[in-house]
């Protein structure tokens, strides 16, 4: 457990880290609206496979994206400990299905390294960089790239 003191350092950024298949990913905090537990998802026909459906958030209907599907990770059954991260990108609000949330981290800008080539796991367009989170590396995701209209379609498999 890390105690977090949010230092307003101009050269740092705050990330919310979450887990996907034991791999930590980070999202900029300002893009995060809310974090919720599992809610029922209504499947919608004729959508790409990584879009699980839609959910009702206090009257608002938002699409739910299964990041596992998006990253071509094996699918798991979702239970009540599954977390949905509500994120906003511009005007779009999307729910992201993740395994669990870890922490809110403040990371210095100079601590963010360039992303190496992961190979097939993640298309490097989505990756802003990597940073140290506890004793592992977390991948900073580029939400915009993740959530473009055309990207709501299944991305081509990274080689």
């Amino acid at each position, binding site marked *: 457990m890390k105690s977090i003191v949010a230092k307003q350092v101009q050269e740092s950024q705050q990330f919310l880290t979450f887990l996907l298949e034991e791999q930590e990913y980070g999202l900029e905090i300002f893009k995060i609206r809310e974090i919720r537990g599992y809610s029922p998802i209504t499947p919608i026909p004729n959508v790409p496979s990584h879009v699980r459906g839609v959910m009702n958030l206090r009257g608002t209907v938002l699409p739910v994206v299964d990041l596992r599907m998006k990253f071509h990770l094996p699918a798991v059954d979702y239970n*009540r400990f599954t977390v949905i991260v509500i994120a906003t990108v511009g005007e779009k609000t999307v729910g992201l299905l993740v395994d669990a949330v870890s922490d*809110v981290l403040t990371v210095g800008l100079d601590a963010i390294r360039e992303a190496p080539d992961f190979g097939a796991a993640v298309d490097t367009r989505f990756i802003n960089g990597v940073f140290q989170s506890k004793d592992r590396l977390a991948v900073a995701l580029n939400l915009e790239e993740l959530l473009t209209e055309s990207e709501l379609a299944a991305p081509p498999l990274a080689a």
Partner: protein
Amino acid sequence: MNWFKNLNAKPRLMSSFGVLLVLTLGISYLAISSLSKANDRIQSLYQKDLRGVIAVELIDTSRIDLAQKDRDALIKIDDQASVATDINAVRADFGRMRTGIQDAEQSFLTKEGKDIIADMRENLPAYEKSVEAVITAIEAKDTPGAKIAIYALAPLAAHMSADIDHALKLKESHAEDRFQENLAAYDTARSLVIGAAALSLALGLILSFVIARGFSVPLGQAVATLEKVAGGDLTASLDVGTHDEVGRMAEALNSAVERLHSTMQQVTESAANTSDSSQQLAAASDAIASGAQEQAASLEETSASLEQITAAVRMTAENAKKASDLASGSHSVADRGQDGVSAMAAMAEISASSAKISEIISSVDEIAFQTNLLAVNAAVEAARAGDEGRGFAVVASEVRILAQRSAASAKEIKGLIQDSLKKVERGSDLVKQVTLLVSEIALSSGEQSAGIEQVNTAMSQMDQVTQSNSAQTEELSATAESLAEQASHLSELVSTFTLSHNGNGRRDQQAQQPHEATAAHHSSQAQRSSSASRSLLTATRSNSAARPELKARGSKRINARQATPAIASPSVPAIDDASFEEF
């Protein structure tokens, strides 16, 4: 003489008889011809000589009579009657004289004879005339004239008388000649006939002797040989050497005896082979019987083991049942009074409590999770709020910490619960395993029982096979026995004959007897073994309740089994039956 010996009987006999017949014919011919010659002589004697003599005698008597009558007439010159008679008589005499001369002419055929008779005939008329002169004188009663006439008659009469004598003498000498001839001929003929007869006799004797010998000797040899053969000596043979029927008979006899001899030899060989075969049969029967015995012994052992297995299975099933009862919670009398809580019930209670606790814990977990989420949300808001949110962020982080702690405690408790659940599970797993094992034991007991049943079936089949084996062995040994009997019988029969390889006949007879006994013996052994196995099988099947005597019985049986190999003595039946009485 060999060619004669080689003639067949018929030609030989016929030729011999023929010779004798020819001789006889010859003698007959001789005799007949001599007789006929003699007959001729006698005929001639009679016809010529005697009749000639008679004829001349007639002339003579006539002459004498007429002379007499002349004198009478002279004397009785005065008696006319008697003179007449006498004169008639004289004329009759001349008649007779002429007849005589005629007859004599028939009988005097030689020149001399003929001459004499011719002389007589010539003389006769003059004689007659002078006699007539006498008669005339007498008739004229001229006695002196008569006397002169008579004196004139005298030379004529004398002439006639001389002729008559001559003729008689001629005939006499002829007759004597013929007589002498006859005598000589008789002598000759007699000698010839005697000689021929003697020759015939000798030849006949010789021939009969030879022929008789020619038949009797070979026949005698044949008889002797046949008697030898009848007596059993098949090595006898007959050497006659001739080629007549007897010789061929001898040859045929020889070949017959040879055939018989070789046949008997073959029979002897066959008998020997048969007795060998019967020995082999007996040995095979031995082997089978001993195999059956071994089989029966194995069956005994197997059934003893089966009994033990059955007992063990039974005990196992009982124990398994007991264990199952224990596990499932049904109490037996012995167990009541213990703590009364079965494992399954206790475990069920623990499981229920644990489940409840798990529920509670999971709800605590959920609360912690939600709290965490809220805290993260708060942190996010605080971060977005920047400076103003700093205190909020602190609060949020504290809340997070608390949430994490409670989550951690919940996790611990969960872990403990899971641990105890695991242990309970393990316990129930163990119980389940025990139950499973028990049911498996029960199953395998069932299978074992089924297996034992199958083994029983197999054993009864084996017993049947052993039985049929022993029956077959009996038959085999019976066959071997009868075979041996036949062979020995055969050998006996053949041994009465004398064959050229003597001594083999007796041997086989003696060798068969021990094997016959052994064969019969082993078959009875096999029978006993099979009856033993049968009784054992019945014991195994009827073993529904495992009795502790089983082990004792097993050992007793082992003792009996050890006793059975001592089946060399005839007291065996007693031992076997005594041991098997237990069943």
